[in-house]
Each structure stands twice: as structure tokens, then as C-alpha cells.
């Protein structure tokens, strides 16, 4: 279980506001985080990963990731992170990107197979399409077998067909690896398909809606 109680001042285009999130996440939850641009959705993910400073505390299965000024190093958090812009290591091949994280050849091959990109293993990542890059990014994020998977609008640069395909893939991986997943998205359809809980971030606060309410709403 993840206990989040964090606050951070954000300076956006419409002045400054405070992002204050107090919430619990159960093991195995798939939470889609929605809200307007600049609401602090990505910032929340980055705070969880340790990429961004914030006040307050985060506890994961009883272990404090941050609390009262102490902070667990990014490297020590059991987190997989998928960036909107893929952020692949551009000087490496597809497989090297995975092996850089964890030198487990067998697991890398398994993940490439699951993502249906085993044929691209030796290709330089600069020569991939957007959809292929995002699948590499996803596979790379799983290489450390993280307990928590954080995804920041992973589909935003993809065409609808690829979005659909990748969403299916993510659902499958989430279940197979028994992860806790938090994903930022703008797409209600995706939220309905993937999430068991949905958070809306509004005026710096996270409000939870259950997915049935979402069905009624849209």
C-alpha cells in the first residue's frame, strides 16, 4: 500500500497554487490520473519517483520514501517510469536499452517478446517509430521488476490504433506482474478501460471518482 501525503507549490501560467495530495493506493490498483494541463498530474508522478522535491511524506508498504526532510534516493525506489517522450538512451540499440537497466538477458528477451518487438532487438532506437519507441520504453521500465509503475501520458504521441494496442498491452502487463500502476491520461475511454480508480486533480487537490461514475459522466 502507498500512503501519499505531499504538498508542493507550483508556478504555472495562471499564477501559483499548491498541489496537495493526500491519498492511499492499494497494492494492485490501476489508477488513472486526469485533470487539466498544468494541474500537477505529472508533478505528482515525479514526486513519487523522487525526481521532484515536495513537502510531506510517502510510504510504500511501510517503507518511507520520503518523510520530514529525509528522502530515499531515486535509485533505491522500486519504480518503473514511462515518459511521454520515451526518453530512450539514443546511443544504444533496443536491447541495450533494456540491459542497461538490468543485465538479465533472458528477461529482456521475454519482455521484447511480450511487446512484440523481438525483431527489433539489435536496431538503434533512433530508427524506430513512435509506437515502437514507447514499447521499448515500457519494456525498459519493467526491467527492474518494479512494484510501482508510473506512466506520464504514455500514449499522447501515438495514433489511435497504436494507443488501443498499447493500452491492451499495459493492462496485460499490469496484471501479469502484479504491479501498482499510476497513469496520467487525458482520455476518458482509456481511463474506463484500464483503471479501477480514477483521480481528478483540480485546483491542486486530488478527488477520487469511481469508474461507474465516469460511465455516467461521459
Amino acid at each position, binding site marked *: 500500500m502507498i500512503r501519499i501525503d505531499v504538498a508542493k507549490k507550483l508556478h504555472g501560467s495562471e499564477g501559483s497554487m499548491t498541489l496537495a495530495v493526500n491519498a492511499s493506493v492499494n497494492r494492485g490498483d490501476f489508477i488513472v490520473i486526469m485533470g487539466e494541463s498544468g494541474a500537477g498530474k505529472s508533478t505528482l508522478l515525479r514526486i513519487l519517483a523522487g525526481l521532484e522535491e515536495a513537502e510531506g511524506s510517502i510510504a510504500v508498504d511501510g517503507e518511507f520514501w520520503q518523510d520530514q526532510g529525509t528522502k530515499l534516493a531515486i535509485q533505491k525506489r522500486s*519504480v518503473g*517510469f514511462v515518459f511521454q517522450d520515451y*526518453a530512450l*538512451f539514443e*546511443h544504444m540499440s533496443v536491447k541495450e536499452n533494456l540491459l542497461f537497466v538490468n543485465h538479465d538477458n533472458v528477461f529482456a528477451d521475454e519482455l521484447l517478446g511480450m511487446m512484440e518487438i523481438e525483431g527489433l532487438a539489435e536496431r538503434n532506437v533512433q530508427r524506430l517509430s513512435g509506437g515502437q519507441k514507447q514499447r521499448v520504453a515500457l519494456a525498459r521500465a519493467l526491467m527492474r521488476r518494479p512494484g510501482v509503475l508510473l506512466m506520464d501520458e504514455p500514449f499522447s504521441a501515438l495514433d489511435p490504433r497504436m494507443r488501443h494496442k498499447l493500452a491492451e498491452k499495459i493492462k496485460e502487463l499490469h496484471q501479469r506482474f502484479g504491479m501498482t500502476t499510476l497513469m496520467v491520461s487525458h482520455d476518458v475511454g482509456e481511463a474506463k478501460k484500464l483503471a479501477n480508480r480514477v483521480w481528478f486533480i483540480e485546483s491542486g487537490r486530488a478527488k477520487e471518482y469511481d469508474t461507474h461514475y465516469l460511465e455516467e459522466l461521459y
Partner: protein
Amino acid sequence: MIDMTPFWLSFKLAALTTLILFFIALPLAWWLSQTRAKGKPFIEALTALPIVLPPSVLGFYILVALSPDSPVGAFVESLFGVKLVFTFAGLVVASCFYSLPFMVQPLQNGFESLNRHMIEASYLAGKSTAETLWRVALPNIKPALSTALIITFAHTVGEFGVVLMVGGSIPNETKVASVAIYEMVEVMEYGKAHVYAAIMLGLSFAVLLGVYMFNHKQKNSMGVV
């Protein structure tokens, strides 16, 4: 017969300076590219000083600092038994100050142009800062890296004022090519000066051409689509 020692000294000095500066400038440039510390502009200004200062001013301060009467000079001499004034070792130290910005600035620009998320992805993969710098950041700024190395090397070969101030003109020790040419012109040996200057021109061009050709090949073979 032409004495080639001054050229050998020039290139030895440039190679050593480039090598040493690479390891000094690398962490400094990385820190400057990543930090949000308030002191950053101060360090940046300090690093860039050798570009603006007349070589004689820089040379004068280094000369004073390295002399056996100064604490630094005395310390180095007592510890390593090495004199730093009017010696080759002193020239290397002086050159490292003189060429510092030419190594730091291209590296810093290179690091700053990197996708931040790629660096963060390396941390998220459990890698330390040093490993991230070496295995992710450096391989992705190859053009900036070779620029830094070439410019530092070339700039050190072309050094004159600082070398003259700190090293004087001791044959086989500190009399580098630029100083040798200056002396020939002073005693009006234009014929020799011509030969030396032409060799300097040819060698410098050949080195630069070699490196740029290597770079060009590198970029093409990377095959960015």
C-alpha cells in the same frame, strides 16, 4: 638542420593539457549543467575569465602564485620536489588554467542540450550520477566532446603570452614553437621564422583536418534518420 624540439614541446604540452583538463572539466561542466545553486554564475564567470583576461595578466598571476616564494609554489616544491616556474611542469599547470573555458564550455553546452528525461531514466534504472555521466551523458554529446578536445588542444598549441610569462624560453624545456618563432623574428632571422611558421601552420591544419574528418565520418555512420 631544423631543430624540431619546439614543435615537439608544443604538441606534448597541448596533449597533456587536453588530457588533464578533460578529467578536471568533466565533473565541473556536469555540475554546472545540472545545478540550480545560487553560486553558479559566480563559478561560470570565474571559469570564463581566461577568455577575457590578457594572457600577460593571467601569466603574471600564475607566475606569482607558482613561484617558490608563494605558499602554492613552496608546497608543491616541498611535496614533489618540482619547481613550477620556468619548467615544463609549470607550463602544463599554466596551460590548464589558460585553456579551462575551452574545455568546460562546450561540454557544459552539450550536457545542457541533453533530454533531461533521458538522464532521469538512468537514475530510475538505479545508476549513480558518475555512471550516468559516463555511460549515458557522454556518449550522447560526442560532437560537443570532440569540439571541446579539439579546441582545447588547438588553443594550447597556439598559446604564447602565458607560456612566455610562466615558462620563459629555455631550450628543450619551455621553448615551445610560438616562442621560438617570436625570438627568431626579434633577432631578424626571417628565413628560419618562415620555416617554423610554415611548419606550425601545416601541422596545426593537419591535426584539425584529421579530427574534423573523423567527426564527419562519425556523424555519418550514426545514420540519424
